[in-house]
């Protein structure tokens, strides 16, 4: 099933061999520099992911959810967003976080257990990671309905209007929350894009245990359009997301995007995929690698030369070193910080608790740091 051939309705602009192809409804118009920029995003995000995985294996992170194989789905959709579009991610959207300007070290901090994420969702228009499967789709629809009520929907263009983008996976489509989110979004014509990365595996459950029909076809039952895009094609993902966002912002309602991709690695570092899927499947998807196809396109068309790739490799190495050093240098949190971001406005009971806890900590002869 996971090896199903590309079906005719799959939107693709760049083939796995790196050839541009035409599509009647979707096209992109990128400068050479923008194309190189997309490649740089893909390569650096993969490197961040690899370094984080290694750090987990060295005991520096409690766990890590790798995005390996899903870079194009995330970079393509992330780069299609405007300044007011607001992302509601799962815990694997490291590439989207990158596009929204979130420091990768913030992501590592969460998985190292020193904080709960630590970035400002308002500043980056990127919500905190959501571990509960599918819950963020309801948050996204609520946010989108808020945009409607704030007058952020209409023909003002991306600068004056906005949409919410809910990320989730193929497994999440079986969740009640997600189906409720579809219904609310549909009934209220909420400006939301449901971006489903169908990576074929919900931990160890294959797609055929989630659905009898292609996932994107479910959207029509809820009353909004669905489209399947080659999630390993950064250009097609960009084009499809851009169109869905434009539709949402102008008030035409939600779109379901099924980015057809593959989780090349384990579900998380705690998982061993060799126990439930065959190597041949992984090998087949390697041939559809999202980065290799853009690389061969850039080389063949002369849009990037060897020097450029080498410079990027060096930048990538520096970034990895920065990530490693930054991760190892992260301070353990002070117990008092637990009171800092619970409520927007301080109030008396919280202040009392903080005071009591401070007194309790002060009752010891040494700090816990000194003691260790």
């Amino acid at each position, binding site marked *: *099933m996971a090896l199903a051939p590309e079906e005719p309705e799959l939107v693709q602009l760049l083939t796995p061999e790196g050839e541009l192809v035409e599509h009647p409804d979707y096209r992109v118009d990128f400068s050479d520099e923008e194309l190189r920029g997309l490649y740089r995003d893909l390569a650096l995000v993969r490197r961040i992911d690899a*370094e984080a995985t*290694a750090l*987990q*294996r*060295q*005991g*520096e992170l*409690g*766990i890590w959810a790798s995005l390996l194989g899903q870079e194009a789905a995330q970079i393509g959709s992330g780069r299609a967003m405007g300044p007011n579009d607001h992302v509601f991610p799962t815990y694997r959207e490291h590439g989207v976080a990158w596009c929204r300007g979130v*420091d990768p*070290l*913030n992501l*590592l*901090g969460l998985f190292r257990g*020193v*904080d709960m994420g*630590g970035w400002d969702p308002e500043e980056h228009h990127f919500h905190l990671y959501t571990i509960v499967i599918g819950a963020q789709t309801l948050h996204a629809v609520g946010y989108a309905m808020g945009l409607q009520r704030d007058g952020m929907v209409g023909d003002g263009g991306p600068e004056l209007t906005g949409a919410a983008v809910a990320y989730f996976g193929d497994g999440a489509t079986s969740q009640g929350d997600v189906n409720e989110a579809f219904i609310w979004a549909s009934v209220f014509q909420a400006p939301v894009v449901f971006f489903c990365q169908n990576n074929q595996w919900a931990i160890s459950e*294959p797609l*055929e245990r989630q659905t009898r029909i292609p996932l994107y076809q479910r959207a029509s039952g809820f009353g909004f359009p669905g489209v399947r895009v080659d999630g390993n094609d950064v250009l097609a993902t960009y084009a499809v997301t851009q169109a869905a966002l434009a539709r949402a912002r102008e008030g035409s309602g939600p779109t379901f995007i099924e980015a057809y991709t593959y989780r090349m690695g*384990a579900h998380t*570092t*705690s*998982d*061993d995929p*060799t*126990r439930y899927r065959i*190597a041949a499947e992984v090998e087949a998807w390697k041939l559809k690698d999202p980065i290799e196809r853009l690389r061969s396109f850039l080389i063949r068309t002369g849009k990037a030369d060897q020097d450029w790739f080498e410079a990027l490799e060096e930048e990538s190495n*520096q970034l990895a*070193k*920065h990530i*490693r*050093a*930054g991760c*190892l*240098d*992260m*301070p*353990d*949190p*002070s117990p*008092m*910080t637990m009171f800092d971001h619970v409520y927007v406005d301080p109030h008396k009971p919280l202040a009392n608790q903080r*005071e*009591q806890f*401070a*007194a*309790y900590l*002060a*009752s*010891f*002869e*040494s700090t*816990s*740091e000194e*003691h*260790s």
Partner: protein
Amino acid sequence: MARRQFKLPDVGEGLTEGEILQWFVQVGDRVTTNQTLVEIETAKAAVELPSPYEGEVVELLAAVGDVIDVGAPIITIETEPDGAPSVPAPAAPSEPGAQAAQVGVAAAMGGADPEIAAGLIGGEAPGGRTAVLVGYGPRTTTAKRRPRRAVHESGHRPTPAPDPASEVLGGPLGTEGVKPTRYAGVEFGRLIEARESAHGGESVPARTIGVDEQGDAGRVTVLAKPPVRKLAKDMGVDLRSVTPTGPGGTITRADVAAAAGPAAVSLAGESRSSTAREERIAVKGVRKMTAQAMVASAFTAPHVTEFLTVDATRTMDFVEQLKRHPSMQGLKISPLLVVAKAVCLAARNTPEANATWDEAAQEIVLKRYVNLGIAAATPRGLLVPNIKDADSMSWPEMAVALNQLSATAREGRTSPADMAAGTITITNVGVFGVDSGTPIINPGESAILAFGAIRPMPWVVDGQIVPRQICTLALSFDHRIVDGATGSRFLVDVGRVIEDPITALIL
């Protein structure tokens, strides 16, 4: 010179140990950051660990096959092998450095390589570490309370809310100086008589277990922490019979162990919770994998087992001839070699026995090659490594492959790759001295052959009863793929080769 030790990390949320499968580096090797050092197997997965340091390998602290606790060092790396002046920890690049400072929170502490901090969870769990659902698990070191300040400068020290029960029962501590505690409605550590008389019997009478006056009639004189009580229960020790040596007259683990006698003492320290009459062994690692694989196979593939008893005398003669053959010098030759050949040949005639049921695709995948699995009892448990493309091997090649396979398994070096992608399996139960069995198919395959012991038995040859070397073959097959006729043909083909190895030339 700066030597760093890499401690076995918890690679899978709550693991407590890992087994060293293979080292990819040796002492003296130069390694770079993130270079793969070692492959370990945990209860969850076989995992390669990348090096956290750059430098030269000074010492490997664990051998292949060792089971190492999470947190124990496994390798020492000299990070300045040339004696270069101390290089500061990798400096953060200048421009993103500012961003790094935003991450995290106040209070600087720790580093990449923290000392083992005092444990907060656990206490005296049997066998030290306890597996937990998530996180890193309790430390094995003994928890130490941080000392409280003698005087409260702040005056803010919170006073615990008064416990109504202790109010009722309030008063000075018992003369033994043991602080009383309440547990499940029972007060421990104080005499109660005074209490009852003081309250004129109006309070809820609390039963008390005191620490004094051993053997006083009607009073149980036991003070022990719950884990010690559990240990005593597991070991079948009556706590009333134990002489306490702990503080305040409490019974310690050592007291329980001593009371149980020398035989039980050794049990107390092991990660098995056991009693004299029963032993409990945690299901993990290979045992767990085996269990899962066997359950999966037994309850998805409808098994049919057929038996065939054959005269293996000619096979035994043939093995003797092979042993003397120049191409087989230095190799251990057994009848298993003939069976292995026979299975490969029979699979060519009956590919259904060398096939996979693809549930998802609703297809049967017939393999045009044989990756011949050999079930092996190893120190790690039952493993089924396979010989890749066994069907294309000559007799000497097959003999070498079987020798290597068993040597690798015996040394515990069988890698996951060795066990992957098998197509059919032989289980040589004969080496255990039994005649036959009903083997369970290795998941993903369609048949398994059990090869029983070869022993002299009366046999009818040309109407005469003569002693022959007799052996029983049992073939279990997946009836979704293999029908009775097909399975029988396969089994008979194998039997023909064993009855007369020359058949191998014409099959």
